[in-house]
């Protein structure tokens, strides 16, 4: 009897000892991870530019980032630094250091900035990237950054899910589609506005993700871009200033619920659900309902949506201009297609502000053409019309495409800016524009405001 109870007491004590040892270990690990990454943490204050209201509007925002390169390169989110005009960073020692935008990728919401180390007397710390493929659900993680601008903050949690999928209809605040080429870590480590761009860190002190999104009105549902995606994107940005992808104009759908209908086996093939008009895929006569079995001899499958980013990445990784060989199942027959990949290019064009006209216009990229159902990329896209201004008086609207100024046909933004500069110099009393709106042609006369010097630019 006495023996038994003694044994029980020993057992309880052993458990206690064991568990307190675990707690100490975890605490030590958190401290050590903190010490490895916190010195590389950056508080980023960019001034970002927005042209949607028909004029340049500047906005001071706050984000986070982490130094990943001894030359002072910092990785952050595209939605933090992508439209930045000026960037001021605060390092771990609270010193202010200006930074310069190097390049970004809206599709994965990653951007790289470079600290101006000439203006910094300290020594920077570089954080190490880990391997996001080896991360497990339930693994402890730390989120570091500046939630609600409260710099040098840590929160802790676990990886809630490691393969969260967002449909490619998700957009950044600046309007670009995002998320097509990557999955997301979901974590319950608190992520708030201002955490964007900050590192998600494992207990060994490696960066395993870049915190990017949070769910509003939810408790601790945040999302990070896995670091393997970040590694690839930052390498390309450092090498070329941008990420180059191929585009053939496919939209795909998970096969899971459609296997019986298409008569396919499990884990076999990727279903094409839609084809962009005028795309290489359309020119190669692919169509919705085709099932791609192989890409350049490699079998592909997307039974679940979570598999789609891998397939999209496989297509995107081709050299633009190269030919992609697709083995396709159509009506129970196998066909071979060759599709000429073209460069995806910029999602959004360069923006130009016409101060005197109360108007901002944007160069039309191929992707803008597809998205806005335009017949070509000629002309300039009306990005914004100032609420009170000549363009508003003339009846211009966001989404109009200006195809002619006076009698001169516009090829693109360069033609437009040249004409704008010439016309404002001439100080004409009227400017005649020809537009395309929903496929129909319209004519607009911008009246002059003589008291303010006609159409003279206010600059």
């Amino acid at each position: 009897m006495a023996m038994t109870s003694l044994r029980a007491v020993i057992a309880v004590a052993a458990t206690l000892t064991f568990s307190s040892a675990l707690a100490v270990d975890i605490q030590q690990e958190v401290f050590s991870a903190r010490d490895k990454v916190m010195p590389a943490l950056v508080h980023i204050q960019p001034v970002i530019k927005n042209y949607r209201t028909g004029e340049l509007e500047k906005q001071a925002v706050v984000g986070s980032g982490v130094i990943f390169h001894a030359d002072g390169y910092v990785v952050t989110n595209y939605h933090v630094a992508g439209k930045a005009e000026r960037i001021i960073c605060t390092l771990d020692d609270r010193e202010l250091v200006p930074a310069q935008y190097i390049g970004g990728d809206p599709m994965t919401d990653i951007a790289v900035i470079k600290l101006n180390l000439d203006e910094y007397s300290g020594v920077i710390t570089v954080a190490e990237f880990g391997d996001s493929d080896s991360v497990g659900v339930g693994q402890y993680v730390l989120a570091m950054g500046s939630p609600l601008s409260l710099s040098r903050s840590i929160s802790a949690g676990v990886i809630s899910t490691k393969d969260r999928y967002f449909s490619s209809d998700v957009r950044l605040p600046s309007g670009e589609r995002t998320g097509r080429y990557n999955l997301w870590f979901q974590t319950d480590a608190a992520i708030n506005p201002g955490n964007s761009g900050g590192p998600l860190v494992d207990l060994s002190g490696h960066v395993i993700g870049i915190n990017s999104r949070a769910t509003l009105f939810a408790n601790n549902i945040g999302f990070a871009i896995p670091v393997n995606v970040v590694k690839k994107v930052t390498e390309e940005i450092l090498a070329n200033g941008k990420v180059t992808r191929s585009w053939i104009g496919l939209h795909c759908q998970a096969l899971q619920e459609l296997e019986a209908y298409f008569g396919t086996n499990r884990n076999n093939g990727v279903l094409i659900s839609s084809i962009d008009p005028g795309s290489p895929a359309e020119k190669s006569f692919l169509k919705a309902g085709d099932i791609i079995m192989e890409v350049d001899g490699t079998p592909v499958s997307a039974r679940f949506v979570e598999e789609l980013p891998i397939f999209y990445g496989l297509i995107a990784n081709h050299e633009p201009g190269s030919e992609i060989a697709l083995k396709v199942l159509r009506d129970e027959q196998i066909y071979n297609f060759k599709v000429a990949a073209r460069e995806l290019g910029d999602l959004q064009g360069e923006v130009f502000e016409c101060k005197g006209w109360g108007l901002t216009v944007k160069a039309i990229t191929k992707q803008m053409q597809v998205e806005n159902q335009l017949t070509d990329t000629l002309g300039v896209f009306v990005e914004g019309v100032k609420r009170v201004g000549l363009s508003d008086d003339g009846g211009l609207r966001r989404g109009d495409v200006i195809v002619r100024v006076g009698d001169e046909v516009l090829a693109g933004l360069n033609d437009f800016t040249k004409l704008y500069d010439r016309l404002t110099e001439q100080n004409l009393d009227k400017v005649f524009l020809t537009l395309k709106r929903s496929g129909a042609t319209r004519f607009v006369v911008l009246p002059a405001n003589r008291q303010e010097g006609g159409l003279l630019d206010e600059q």
Partner: protein
Amino acid sequence: MSNKQRPHSRLRALAAVAVLLGVLSLPMAGEAQDFNFPRLEEKVKSFTVRIDMTIEISFGMNSNEQEDQFLGNIVTPDGLVLFNGSVLAAESGFMMHGFNVKMTPTEISVTTLDGQQYAAEYLGVDRYTNFGFVRITAPEGTKFDAVAFAEQPCKVGDWLALYMLLPDFIDPPLAADIGMVSVLVRSPDSIPLTVGFNSLQVGSVLFDRDLQPVGVLGPLMDPSAAGFDVAAMMETADQFGMPLLGVISGERLNKIIESPPTKGSTDRGWLGISLQALTKDIAGFWDIDAAGGIIVNEVINNSPADKAGIEMGDIITEINGQPIEIDREDKIAIFQRSIADLGPGASVGLSILRLTNGERQPVSMVVTLAQSPLAATDAPEYTSETFELTVRNLVFSDYMLFNVDEETFQGVVVSELKPGGLAYVGGLTIGDVVQRIDNEDVTSIADAEAILEKIEIEQPRELIFFVWRNNKTLFVNVKADWK
């Protein structure tokens, strides 16, 4: 002392108020005395009815019902009744965010002021006046007392009287009021505006001092407020948000009464162009000497304009010999209305300026108008009770809205879904264009009906819908649940 004086001064104050009121109301009272109200009331009682109506309002996945009561005027001996239909103005096609707002009057009854009650059927709302029409279902040969409108113009300063219908718990039901013609408005609509009346009285017959019915009190409509696929035009409002009221003339009413609007069909003429106003600025730039006109921005394939040879960039300056004085965007609807009013089949002479070899040359042509395309809510529908899904045919405005080619784009539009129904759970959404079900093409609701009826017999476990949504296509698996 003071106690004695106080009632005195109070009396004086009252007298002063009375005098003031008297001064203010004297001219009105004087004019009112010129109307023989007892006789007028007898007249009004004979053709005035109370309309009770249940209106079903549905928008996409939601619907509810409301009960309404209107003053009605019997306008033909066989029982055509006119009322203020502005509540139902959305009835003839109103589209928001991809779903249709539909207003369907059900359970209509018409009660005469001597207590006779009749069933009635709903006809439609006239888009230029917002007047609605119902027809009494009465035994063959029943003759009603009807108001017959005089076709005489009003002048500024004319006094008019009407009777308004009071809520049904008040007895007697009719109350008189008078008002005055204040201005003869030419644009945006030709209508004499009145002062003295209020918006609760819209739909009441207006009488002159000889007790001639000269028209009905109605709102001044703003044609420029008619948006995309909004068939009904909006009422204009003064700065306090009250509608500007005036006399919808007997002449105009008699035309509408002759061919009252019919929901689901259109007797409006259609040219088939998209257009903009020839403003002074544009005319100046092109060196065109005209008081206004219509610039043709786009010609719809196979439309009357296309068949007659109208081209993009043409400027229409005259219609049937009359100059088109449209020099502002908000006047465009005046032109659209004149085309609509001419009706399908009408031959219309147009004078056009066309750019030929760098110069604008006059061209004249005759266009035979077609019937205006159906509004989205007037499109024929099919409902599958099993899938709790309603689809409708594509209409012209869909092609414009979706920016797709009418020749090649096909399908039926998902117009209603019951939350929790099979189609909803499967993932269809309002506004999807169903192009294929399983392996069969769907080009009309007849196709959809045939496929979905056949499925009732075959009872497959799932249906694959191929749909167009937001400019992309996708497959949607709808699982069946056969009992």
